[in-house]
């Protein structure tokens, strides 16, 4: 039975479609595996009594029918606890289900569980969860990355065949990189945000965490599309093609200096793995050349104004009045607000609410929020210019491999640097994927850990992006698995 855990979602789905495997058996296998979660990857698991949550989609042919999917706990699921990793939503059972989850359901996928995450998506290590840190399956002393750390650890640790997450500044790509799996952040607007608990609305995007590029394409294909409930959703014209490309001839890859060799804090092992990946791209017939994205050096600064500003408004609704945690004080309304929010929110969330509130305050708006938006516009222009020359841009996903639990918790700025290479794509709203590019030791020594290669494409060029990523994935041939997991 445990050999089922070695299958990709696409492989399992085709066995189910061929009648060689039942959806029930496949789900039971993963329900067992998830029940033995020793990574703290899940916040809620589907139990034997949760049959009501089984797939309800029709019987038509879909490439993911019968596949269990782990859902980041930022997606509302009707009647199923949804916390956004925050104590302030402890016990909250939403009255409705997010569009992305409904679409998976309609495609015949099954809800496997809700995964742990940094509170409201704010973090790069999963240590900001209100329900305890997630451990990296490659080394339990290390972080899985964040904020979709639970989803990444579950997929890497064979506790889920695939998962969905959200990416605001790197929250899918960075944990995928640190856990040695594939993480796709689609174009802003490709997948509906309806029912996805908001962190920074102009940046948040639903995406996938999977074993391979094909699974990413299949999940994206099931979820993408315009949703009348999300005015900013547009879908991907022409849908998503299943990737089959074998070489990269005729394709050009730009390497932005600012986000590779010159990026802050790039580890030697990461740089070496990245260089090897560039070699693979060349071997596959791709052209590789250096380029510049001069404003991307300011990406992180702009991001840490815009995202907290939006968050400060998005998180105002957690006031103890209508749902979630409530702490009555001495009877005064303001006191109740303050106690509830003090108890319910963690330190990083409070920090960002403060930052964001300040950035929007009368007299500071232009200097902070206004200026950050101008930087964002420049970054968009940088990418537009680069894509006139190149089909794709490639960078390391994370400057470092997985770091140890606690290593950056005392230094928020060091933590923020984890997203140095991923934030610019989020600001530009363009799609980017992280695929495993090999293993490397951290600076200063330690076990060999996964390194991620980030590939970015112009808006809504998901199909060409996935095709190129598929070719590179095969060229790299990453087969390593965390010790202790099935098949390792």
């Amino acid at each position, binding site marked *: 039975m445990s050999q089922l855990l070695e299958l990709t979602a696409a492989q399992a789905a085709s066995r189910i479609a061929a009648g060689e495997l039942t959806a029930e058996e496949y789900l039971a296998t993963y329900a067992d595996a998830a029940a033995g979660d020793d990574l703290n990857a899940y916040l809620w698991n589907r139990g034997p009594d949760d049959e009501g949550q089984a797939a309800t989609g029709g019987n038509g042919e879909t490439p993911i029918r019968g596949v269990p999917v782990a859902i980041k706990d930022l997606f*509302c699921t009707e009647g199923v606890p949804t916390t956004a990793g925050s104590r302030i939503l402890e016990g*909250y059972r939403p009255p409705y289900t997010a569009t992305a989850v409904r679409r998976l359901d309609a495609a015949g996928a099954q809800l496997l569980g809700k995964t742990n995450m940094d509170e409201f998506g704010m973090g790069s290590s999963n240590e900001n969860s209100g329900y305890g840190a997630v451990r990296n399956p490659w080394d339990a002393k290390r972080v899985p990355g964040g904020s979709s750390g639970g989803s990444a650890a579950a997929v890497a640790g064979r506790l889920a065949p695939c998962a969905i997450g959200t990416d605001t500044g790197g929250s899918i790509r960075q944990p995928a990189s640190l856990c040695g799996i594939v993480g796709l952040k689609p174009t802003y607007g490709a997948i509906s945000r*309806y*029912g996805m608990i908001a962190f920074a609305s102009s940046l948040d995007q639903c995406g996938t965490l999977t074993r391979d590029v094909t699974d990413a394409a299949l999940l994206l294909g099931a979820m993408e599309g315009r949703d009348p409930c*999300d005015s900013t959703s547009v879908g991907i014209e022409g849908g998503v093609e299943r990737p089959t490309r074998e070489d990269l001839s005729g394709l050009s890859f730009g390497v932005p200096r600012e986000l590779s060799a010159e990026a802050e804090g790039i580890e030697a092992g990461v740089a070496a793995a990245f260089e090897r990946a560039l070699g693979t791209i060349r071997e596959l017939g791709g052209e590789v050349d250096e380029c510049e994205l001069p404003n991307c050096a300011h990406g992180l600064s702009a991001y840490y104004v815009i995202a907290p500003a939006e968050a400060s408004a998005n998180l105002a609704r957690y006031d103890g*009045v*209508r749902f979630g945690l409530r702490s009555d004080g001495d009877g005064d309304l303001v006191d109740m607000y303050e106690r509830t929010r003090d108890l319910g929110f963690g330190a990083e969330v409070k920090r960002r609410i403060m930052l964001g*509130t300040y950035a929007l305050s009368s007299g500071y708006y232009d200097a902070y929020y206004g200026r950050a938006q101008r930087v964002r516009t420049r970054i968009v222009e940088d990418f537009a210019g680069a894509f006139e020359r190149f089909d794709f841009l490639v960078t390391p996903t994370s400057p470092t491999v997985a770091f140890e639990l606690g290593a950056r918790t005392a230094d928020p700025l060091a933590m923020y640097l984890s997203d140095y290479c991923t934030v610019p794509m989020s600001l530009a709203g363009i799609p980017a994927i992280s695929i495993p590019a090999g293993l490397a030791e951290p600076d200063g020594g330690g076990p060999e850990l996964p390194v991620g290669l980030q590939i970015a494409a112009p808006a809504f060029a998901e199909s060409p992006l996935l095709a190129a990523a598929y070719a590179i994935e095969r060229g790299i041939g990453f087969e390593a698995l965390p010790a202790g997991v099935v098949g390792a």
Partner: protein
Amino acid sequence: MSLPEGYEAVIGLEIHVQLSTRTKMFCGCALSFGDEPNVHTCPICLAHPGSLPVVNEKAVRYGLQIGLALGCEIAPRSIFHRKNYFYPDNPKGYQISQYDIPLASAGRLAGVRIHRVHLEEDAAKMIHLGESGRIHGSASSLVDFNRGGTPLVEIVTEPDLRDAAQAREWAQLLRTTVKQLGVSDVNMEEGSLRCDANVSIRRAGDEELGTKTELKNMNSFRFLERGIEAELERQGAVVEAGDQVAQETFHFDPRTGSLTPLRSKEYAHDYRYFPEPDLVPLAPTEEMLREARSALPELPDERRHRYETELGVPEVTARQLAFDAELGEYFERAVQAASDSGAADVHAGAIANWVTGELIARLRESGDGEAGPGSSKVSPEALARLVDMVETKQVTTGAARKVLAALVDQGGDPAEIVEREGLGQMSDEGELEAIVERAIEAEPAAAEKVRSGNPKAIGPIVGAVMRETKGRADGGDVTRLIQEKLGAG
């Protein structure tokens, strides 16, 4: 109202109009008034995590109609902002409103400039338990989210109004204008029309505006006028005492008719506006603009203008008819009837005077004043016929009043009433002369005074003639005949 010598009032209004769309501004919940609390709610208008707003297209169309009716320019691309504040009536912690680029701006209504017209959502309704009826001092407060998310149009004027009565009259005109568009119930008691006033005073002739105060919660036109009057009085006293008016917000208490300042905590907000990332810019299509334009009825101010210029109605009467939709409708039907009857002259000015004068007064006397002429027994055709009879001297004005009273009582055809009651005007000069002579004989003392040069003494003789003729004689003819007989005049 007494401002200090040489001072003038400067008043601007901020009007909120609840649109009568089927559903709320950003979700599919039905609009309602008076339903059980919290039955028209959903994850969106309760601000559940992950929910997103979607703009109500009908509300945009209604907003465009209001903007066009107020002569505004429509923004080709307007955007929504988040207006942040914590309060239990505001479940998201921010209100979605428009800020630097409103739907419409730079309009004008009856000489008052419109600064802007924008779309937003209403807050939920709070009910404060206890004596004060306000959040401070109440034992507890309840929130009804049925109202939360109702589409609102906010209309902001420039400070072009100069006294309280003018502000009231203009607000009533605005109400009629919006009512005629059919986009809102505009009922002040139910809160579908709400009016705040910004009030300041300054030396007449000054360009610069004085410090303004804001008046809230005046939930009738009468209270609006009274609130502004009270505030002007107060500011006048402050200035006369040599002090400066402070920027404050006042809450009008309809029970006492007085203004109480809100605690600064209640209004000293930094709203931290920023563009709403959940919504795309609002760009009305050509089709939407065309539809909004073609849906515009004739508006009160245009109607007043037409009454004056085309129908020759005097300004005050024209205004009265045009700014009261029902009255205007009745008047128009009467004019139409007169025109359809083929009479030589429509006498629109006279019809206007009869509608706004005699008819309203008579209906009020009979206790039907509230119902209005449209639902009275006096058909517009009957009134037109009656006016025509007066103007062509078939009946005297006095007799016509009697006919009108009969019409108010039981309806019918004025010509028949005249016939039945014998109220037709006397056209036989010989008959009238005989009656006049008898009256002079009956009032010798008065006759003597008139002969000796006191024309005012003619009254008792005229009275006697009118009694005799039961008002069928024309007053002018009677006076002339008496004077001739007495060798006076």
